[in-house]
């Protein structure tokens, strides 16, 4: 994909690629705490059924995933594993931080063993607030991420500018972009 690397992809082709990418998101489920059950309800239950949005929640390993949902309390003991598995994911990759604990520490804001927000170790695209968020909130986060992917400049993303030198602000479900 030399065209993409040099950032000279024709617009119709970008649109087509982005459309395809946004509707075949393979989600790696990083279920940690209470939110994991709500994530299971969103991804594995007949009532919420995430597959109708074009999200496939069953990759065999992070190496096949486009999106990781960090759902639950990230402890200092768990943080190195999260970082390592995030680094195993191929670019372009996206992160949804689900629940107050993963966003900022949540009810354990003064605990000695909890990482106060997963954004300290990996870049986050979508924050889903709530303790735990309802499955609908997670689904909205997925839809917002799909909209972002559709408007993305693939060249910038594939050159790695999307992750390290973030051009776009993260989105908060139910709110505006945060400072």
């Amino acid at each position, binding site marked *: 994909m030399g065209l993409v690397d040099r950032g000279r992809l024709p617009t119709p082709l970008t649109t087509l690629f982005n459309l395809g990418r946004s509707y075949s998101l393979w989600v790696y489920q*990083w279920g940690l705490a209470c939110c994991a059950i709500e994530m299971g309800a969103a991804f594995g239950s*007949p009532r919420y059924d995430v597959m109708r949005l074009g999200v496939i929640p069953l990759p065999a390993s992070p190496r096949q995933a486009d999106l990781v949902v960090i759902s639950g309390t990230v*402890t200092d*003991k*768990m943080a190195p594993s999260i970082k390592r598995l995030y680094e195993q994911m191929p670019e372009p990759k996206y992160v949804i931080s689900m629940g107050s604990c993963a966003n900022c520490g949540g009810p354990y804001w003064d605990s000695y063993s909890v990482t106060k927000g997963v954004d300290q170790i990996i870049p986050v695209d979508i924050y889903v607030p709530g*303790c735990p968020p309802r499955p609908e909130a997670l689904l909205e986060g997925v839809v917002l991420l799909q909209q972002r992917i559709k408007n993305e400049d693939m060249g910038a993303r594939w050159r790695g500018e999307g992750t390290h030198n973030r051009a776009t602000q993260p989105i908060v479900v139910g709110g505006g972009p945060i400072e």
Partner: protein
Amino acid sequence: MTDLVDRQKLSYIAAQAADARLNVELETEGMTLNIGPQHPATHGTLRIIVRLDGEQVIWAEPGAGYMHRGYEKLTEVRTFPQVTALVNRIDWLGSFANEVPFILAAEKLMEVEAPPRAQWIRTILFELSRIANVSLFLGDLGVQLGAITPVFMAFRDREYVLNLIESATGGRFHPNFDRIGGLKEDLPAGWITETKQVMKKLRNFCDEIENLLFGNEIFQSRLRGIGVIPAEVAKQYGLSGANLRASGVDWDLRRDQKIALAYDKVDFKVWTHPDGDSFARCWIRLQETREATKIVDQLLDGIPSGSVMAKVPRIIKVPEGEAWVSTENPLGEMGYYVVSKGDLGPFRVKIRSASFNNISIVPWVLRGVYVPDVISILASLYFILGDIDR
């Protein structure tokens, strides 16, 4: 005669030496397998290190602590009403059941008793959280043995229970509904008839699961006779709840202790199973879910009228003292040892959670089993990581 014995011994030693040589040559000295911390079969982030000899486990060690959030320390800097919001999240599948023993301990110290109506509603919500907890176990059990359908059924029917809890308490997952001296609010209108319909659905779900899973030949052969825990060993390791009753010990805190909940007003059976294997543990949980729906039905019929809140001061200061209250939670015995020095918050809280003791038997029960059985035994022991690490 002695010559023969000596020759036998010598040949045995020679065979051993030959085996050892062969092992060195083929490098079959064993392997260490690391299950977790992120593994779909561990109900969270439990890490289990097993050392294998071929297909057999010779040594296993659970590595807990990936979900340690420092509960006991955090309770020291919270006030009494704030602690319920925290302890909801210990066993996150049956959240309401975590609040009850703590509130009961605080009430014991304050010498307040909740009005009868509050006690009955507490008991109803307690049993609903048990159903919400164990129904997910019944679905998840299938997934861990390779059947994916039951989990969809479990999530489908669990939603009904969560809707009930949400309509009564406002919280779908973490109600935070218990107050010292009673409950936050009374039940909403129409809740009782709706609950009765849902209980009927849940009994259907239990029948479905029984036909689909428990009657399945593969399911039975994966679980029967696997991971047998005798009653003596179960007692020594401090197992509680369904894991203990599956070993044939007739012990249930709902029936056996006098507590300010409405269990003495209802008629229910405590199921036990003599086998102590994985199948028995799963079967006990299925029967308990069904029994819980019957308890809820009985409680709904006889719910007394009146207030749901006793007279308590606006700012709660718990007098000096120590109290221990434990209840039969979905996973087993859960208790709080609360020490108060007369302040707004507890001085020290010791939390006895069921799963921590239930997984302490893992090194014992996994010794000598085959690798595929590791997953089924862990599934049948049924722990929740928040309940282990706190």
